[in-house]
């Protein structure tokens, strides 16, 4: 096979890659420590107190099957939707393209129970949109989770799409391939790492989701775990189930590693600017309609449902009260967490892309340590660890941010990895060869290459932290109430007006930083 732009490059035998040295390994190790705290603490907890199984084995098998079905279905549809929105908003010349790109990412900030509430309000006998029976169970959960986790794929795929060398696609077009064929045979294979990252992000998130499946009454593993945590003072049954769930996640990760195709596609040529695709006629109308439909479902619907609730409540003279303090806290901690997580993710991404091998494979799997666990399990394990070994960190903001970093590390790392994988290591070699030291190379060559991935990762973590609830409840300092907590406790008490108002503020407050960041950094 002659070498060419699309051939995978392997390190040549005998050639030692001195890229970064073992400094990156140490940094990656430190960065992984938070992600390992929850699973290791959980293990210790179970070893220490023993296991009990509160759920009969038949029911356990049923829960596993339900969980598996939902995970597979949601992964397929969410990644497809995310790919469509990412492609349309990066490649096609649309009016307000940057706006669409941001809007398509925003549904991630809607907590899944709010999303489920929107579906329930939109259907059912008093449905706002359609008077059909509410799709409880598998169908409703699959719909809600697909629509609202698609941004995970959308944000992960955008840097990937941007950094594909246009020359590869133009070459195919020049050889006579149709647009669809170019997409299928040239674009998609180069997107494989990003697609796999997206799939893992969506799939492992679905494993851990509670909000949607509880409202839509679909019995998954995580639902049983939450029930046991909430209903019992004895934490052993819930810890036992959490361990089983962790084992399931590990199986998924091992399968992914087995079939992983690390295809670093460096073309070695400087990237050219890509002109946007100009559509006309029905393809253009179809693109705009599809995007509009998605935004209406994923943003318009929850917004409308919450706005109606607020109006109805205000008419009945319900008082909403100030949400300013909660908004500031949510924003503050989400921004800090996004920055911290991205800093943690960078060495992990460097190690997995620049030093491929078995050890970096383990690093890559280890970073998912806390992501697939239900957040309540992570919270309880983190509390246990703090009480046992780090008492001064207990109930502090620093620890809360560290645990956010532990949970959401894969979101930041996945996007960063993709940017780095696409960028040729020879650029860094060249910089070193020209006499620039390691720090200068890092600042002037590596960071700019990784930048789109870092930004996308930061955006993902920001949105995820804004809506995070169970871990926040357990780990926050006394009095640190966030918007997500406000929504949850108002809903639980039946104060619907207050809950909806807090939801509207959550959306409003998230859109501004997101838009600023995405329009500056992710659009050409």
């Amino acid at each position, binding site marked *: 096979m002659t070498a060419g732009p699309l051939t995978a490059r392997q390190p040549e035998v005998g050639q030692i890659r001195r890229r970064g040295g073992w400094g990156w390994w140490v940094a990656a190790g430190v960065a992984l420590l938070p992600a390992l705290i929850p699973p290791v603490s959980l293990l210790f907890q179970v070893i220490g107190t023993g296991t009990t199984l*509160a*759920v009969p084995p038949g*029911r356990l098998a049923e829960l596993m099957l339900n969980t598996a079905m939902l995970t597979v279905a949601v992964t397929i549809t969410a990644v497809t939707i995310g790919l469509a929105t990412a492609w349309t908003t990066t490649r096609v010349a649309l009016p307000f393209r940057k706006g669409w790109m941001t809007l398509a990412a925003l549904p991630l900030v809607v907590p899944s*129970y709010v999303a489920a509430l929107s579906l329930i309000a939109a259907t*059912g*006998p*008093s449905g706002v949109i359609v008077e059909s029976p509410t799709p409880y169970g598998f169908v409703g959960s699959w719909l809600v989770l697909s629509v609202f986790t698609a941004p995970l794929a959308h944000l992960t795929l955008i840097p990937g799409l941007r950094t594909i060398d246009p020359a590869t696609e133009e070459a195919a077009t020049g050889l006579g391939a149709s647009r669809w064929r170019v997409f299928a045979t040239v674009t998609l294979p180069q997107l494989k790492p990003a697609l796999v990252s997206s799939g893992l992000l969506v799939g492992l998130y679905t494993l851990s989701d509670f909000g949607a499946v*509880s*409202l839509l*009454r679909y*019995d998954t593993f995580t639902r*049983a775990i*939450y*029930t*046991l*945590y*909430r*209903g*019992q*003072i*004895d*934490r052993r*049954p819930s810890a036992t189930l959490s361990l089983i769930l962790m084992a399931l996640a590990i199986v998924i990760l091992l399968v992914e590693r087995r079939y992983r195709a690390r295809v670093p596609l460096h073309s070695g040529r400087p990237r050219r600017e890509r002109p946007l695709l100009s559509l006309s006629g029905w393809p253009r109308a179809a693109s705009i309609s599809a995007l509009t439909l998605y935004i209406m479902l994923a943003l318009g619907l929850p917004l409308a449902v919450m706005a109606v609730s607020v109006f*109805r*409540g205000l*008419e*009945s003279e319900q008082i909403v009260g100030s949400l300013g303090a909660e908004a*500031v*806290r949510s*924003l*503050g*901690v989400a*921004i*800090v967490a996004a920055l911290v997580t991205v800093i943690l993710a960078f060495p992990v991404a460097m190690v997995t892309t620049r030093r491929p091998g078995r050890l970096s494979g383990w690093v890559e799997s280890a970073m998912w340590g806390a992501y697939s666990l239900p957040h309540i399990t992570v919270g309880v394990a983190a*509390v*246990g660890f703090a*009480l046992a070994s780090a008492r001064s960190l207990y*109930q502090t*903001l*620093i620890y809360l941010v560290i645990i956010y970093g532990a949970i959401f590390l894969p979101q930041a790392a996945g996007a960063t990895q993709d940017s780095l994988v696409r960028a040729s290591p020879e650029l860094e070699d060249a910089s070193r060869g020209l006499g620039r030291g390691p720090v200068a190379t890092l600042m002037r060559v590596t960071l700019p290459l990784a930048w789109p991935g870092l930004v996308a990762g930061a955006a993902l973590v920001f949105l995820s932290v804004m809506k995070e609830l169970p871990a926040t*409840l*357990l780990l*926050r*300092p*006394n*009095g*640190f*109430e966030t918007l997500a907590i*406000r929504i949850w*406790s*108002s*809903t*639980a*008490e*039946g*104060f*619907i*007006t*207050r809950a909806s108002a807090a939801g509207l503020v959550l959306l409003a407050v998230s859109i501004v930083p997101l838009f*600023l960041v995405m329009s500056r950094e992710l659009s050409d």
Partner: protein
Amino acid sequence: MTGALAVMVVSTACGAGDGSEAEGPLVVYSGRSEELVGPLIEQFETESGIGVEIRYGESSELAATLLAEGEETEADVFFAQDPASLGAAAGLMASLPEETLELVDARFRDRDGSWIGTSGRVRVVVHNTDTDLPLPQTIDEAVDPAWAGQMGVAPTNGSFLAFVSAMILERGEDGTRAWLEALAANDPVEFDGNAPIVEATDTGELGGGLVNHYYLLRLRAEGQGNNAENHFIPAGDVGSLVMPAGVGIMTNTDSPEAAQEFVDFLLAEEAQTFFATETFEFPLIDGVPQPDGVPPLSEIAAPDIDLSELAAVLDLATRLVAEAGLV
């Protein structure tokens, strides 16, 4: 942009980092949500001059947290939504003085004086006013086949689990298992919480549901709830269980006087009236008007259950509910 970011970071760090020193504000772990008791806490702070640092959460989670924190807990007071959580943490709580305990009927406080009820919450069968279904006269009639597919339950909810725990005390493990299996076989409609059950009953989606009495009253305050009504089971069984919210003082508190002042405040006329008029719960001291829209507590056929025993059977209750296939 960076400047604003720095300000936000510093303010969030400062705003929440204090309060872990020994002397200082009264630290309250509250299983009652901010929406419910926030204004009351503020009232206490204004009147007493004592600063309160409050940790909101689920009662059962807070109880588990207190147990995990152990003797070194920073908490001074545990203000919980249900007696099972209070009972679980009772080992860490000090006995309240006699004059405090006498304010409330012995049915609504701990046998050993570790905690005292602050307001009453009663189990009801909420039902749609247009329904023809027979209103249950005993809790066993609630699983009558006539109600198949029409009865809403929230099996993961703390109040439901407290209710099942009380049933274990009333009729034993086997009797409770039989009732739960009858419920599961009757095609119950399961929800995550109580409020959606009442909403669904109001819209006619459901014939009725097993909830707490105040959700309907709160729904009416939001402008809805006109097609539903509370039904109090008259038989005197656990169908009309009274579950007080309650409060206790931690043994290792570093502010015992402030903690006692807080407990006294909750049992005084001002707070008890607040519970009746704002959260629609039953006041537990004498001489305070009952809430509108429900019969007075004295007329409700409450069962004779020793609430101090609930905590011991809570885990069993959760297991039975899981084994019946309801979760």
